[in-house]
């Protein structure tokens, strides 16, 4: 893992900000820091003008996190999982139940609400994972590879839903290895590698600025190279 060096970045309200990079580039480290999971040894950042050292709970109330792992209890039902994680965000009673049902409906999982997560397919788990991170309507949503390992239908459902959330005002910071998905979904993209930022612009600008690039994949290869990343 490369630590992040000389890294300066601003994400504005309403953006869908894509963090792209090869394996080991530092994407998950950056997201983990921004979510308050790990603390940087130097440097600082603010979220909505707040820092974790002084306003940990306030920041956590306005962010939502959808980790790369399913991060669900396999032996609990979808509803039990969502009721629990929703309650941790301060939702309760009728409002909590409504939020759970509403999101299950929107992502096509209502009829499976009382089934255990361990019986779900990868795509279904990804959708529940997403709901668990957005039930409290966060202002800023962190998504770490939210569509990895899912079928096309589930991916469509997830991205469509995320677009709708963004239209409603939610800012999204997102990592992915699906470059065409990122090209379509993100308003801004930063390409990072070995802990450094190589480029930062809109997808169209990145393609335009890169010699002979027809799409984001060409930009990505041009900036990070074709070398395999098998570091342990």
């Amino acid at each position, binding site marked *: 893992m490369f630590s992040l060096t000389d890294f300066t970045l601003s994400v504005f309200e309403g953006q869908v900000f894509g963090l792209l990079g090869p394996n080991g580039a530092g994407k998950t480290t950056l997201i983990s820091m921004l979510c308050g999971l790990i603390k940087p040894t130097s440097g600082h950042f603010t979220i909505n003008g707040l820092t974790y050292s002084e306003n940990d709970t306030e920041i956590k109330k306005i962010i939502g996190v959808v980790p790369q792992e399913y991060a669900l209890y396999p032996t609990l039902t979808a509803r039990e999982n969502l009721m629990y994680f929703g309650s*941790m965000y301060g939702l309760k009673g009728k409002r909590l139940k409504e939020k759970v049902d509403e999101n299950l409906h929107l992502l096509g999982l209502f009829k499976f609400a009382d089934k255990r997560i361990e019986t779900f397919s990868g795509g279904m788990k990804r959708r529940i994972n997403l709901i668990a991170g957005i039930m409290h309507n966060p202002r800023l949503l962190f998504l770490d590879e939210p569509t990895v390992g899912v079928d096309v239908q589930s991916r469509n459902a997830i991205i469509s839903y995320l677009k709708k959330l963004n239209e409603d005002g939610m800012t999204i910071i997102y990592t992915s290895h699906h470059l065409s998905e990122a090209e379509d979904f993100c308003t801004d993209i930063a390409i990072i590698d070995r802990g450094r930022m190589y480029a930062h612009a809109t997808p169209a600008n990145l393609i335009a600025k890169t010699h002979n690039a027809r799409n984001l994949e060409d930009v990505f290869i041009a900036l990070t190279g074709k070398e395999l990343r098998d570091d342990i």
Partner: protein
Amino acid sequence: MIYKLYMSVLKEFLLLKRDMGGVIILFIMPLVLIIAVTLIQDSTFKTVSDAKIPILLVNNDNGKVSQEVYQNLEKSEVFTVITKIDGQAITEIQAKEAVFKGKYQLAIIIPQNLSADLQSKIDQNVGKILSNFGMADTLSGKIPQKAIAQKEVKLYFDPAVQMSFKNAVMSSVDKMISQIETKSIYAAFQDQLGEDTAAFEQESFITFKEIVPKVGNKEIIPNSVQHNVPAWTLFAIFFIVIPLSINMIKEKSQGTFVRLHTNPVPNVIVMGGKTIMYLIICMIQFYMMVAVAVFLFPHLGLPALNVEGNLVLMSIVALFSGFAAIGLGILIGTVAKTQEQSAPFGSTFTIILAAIGGVWVPVFAMPEFMQHIAKSSPMNWGLNAFYDVLLRHASIIDIVPEISLLFLFFLLTITIALLYDKKKRTV
């Protein structure tokens, strides 16, 4: 905050409910443990006619002394004395071989002419004493003059028998032989002085009486159940560290722990949910074990656990012991990375805490340096508190030091776990 705590407890309850196999193990195994251990330990102390230990007696003497040894051993109701195999008197070589191969646990070899030589030796000594008192002319018989060699009663033990059994048998045989010698000395004096047999009382002048604590006017006699139930209950309570640490490691590997760290919920609520749920389990375990000891033990031929007037204090001790066990479980679950690390470590560490805490061997019987180490085991604090309540009839004030230590142990382990987790999350 209360609602978050409630939901955390509910989540832990649901997780446990969905693992019925685990729950059954959690409740059934301590019961099996306590029944098995108490049955075994009770029979060690109790003289049960159908649990006599067969021993070999090689009688090379065939005199009065060996006859008396035989009768005393039979009378003891602990041993079945075997003097013949296949209708033939046992030889020392046969006895030694049978015992060393583990077929029998003990063989007693009575040497040749023990009775006659003992009598001669006593007559010599008595004669000398009476002569020294100028009573040589009153002697009724002639004093034997020949030198008499010391006699040796040999004991062969199965090498597998425990030292405590060995010591108990050796002390019993020693006592038996001493009594026979004393009796013979009295008889020799009577004989030499020509006194009537009633002149010397041969009953022990000094006897022992155990004074036991009383509650009101009722004597409370400790039995193996009063000792075993608290000790093994504590042992079972501490085994909660295994499912609890596994629960935490699963949360880490599933990613739910990461999600919880990004939620606006203090760690104390997450840990609080676990602590409350697992404390409930500890208390259910405790009450089940007490119920078994009170109601089932008498049906198994064991004395019932006497909880009269002690249940509230016992519950307090169990509750605080549960806190200590949960703190340890949370610490192990935080530090360990895999179930393969936490489960063997948790179980072995619990056994070590039990061993040094005095669950198996009483602390007073340990070497001095181990007695100091024993004081650092939370199981020792819990055990002492239980003994204070059950056997020493202590009040709540008397157990405050022990339960305070148990709670401090909980606070210390939780603090270390939280600090370790915080440190681990710094890049």
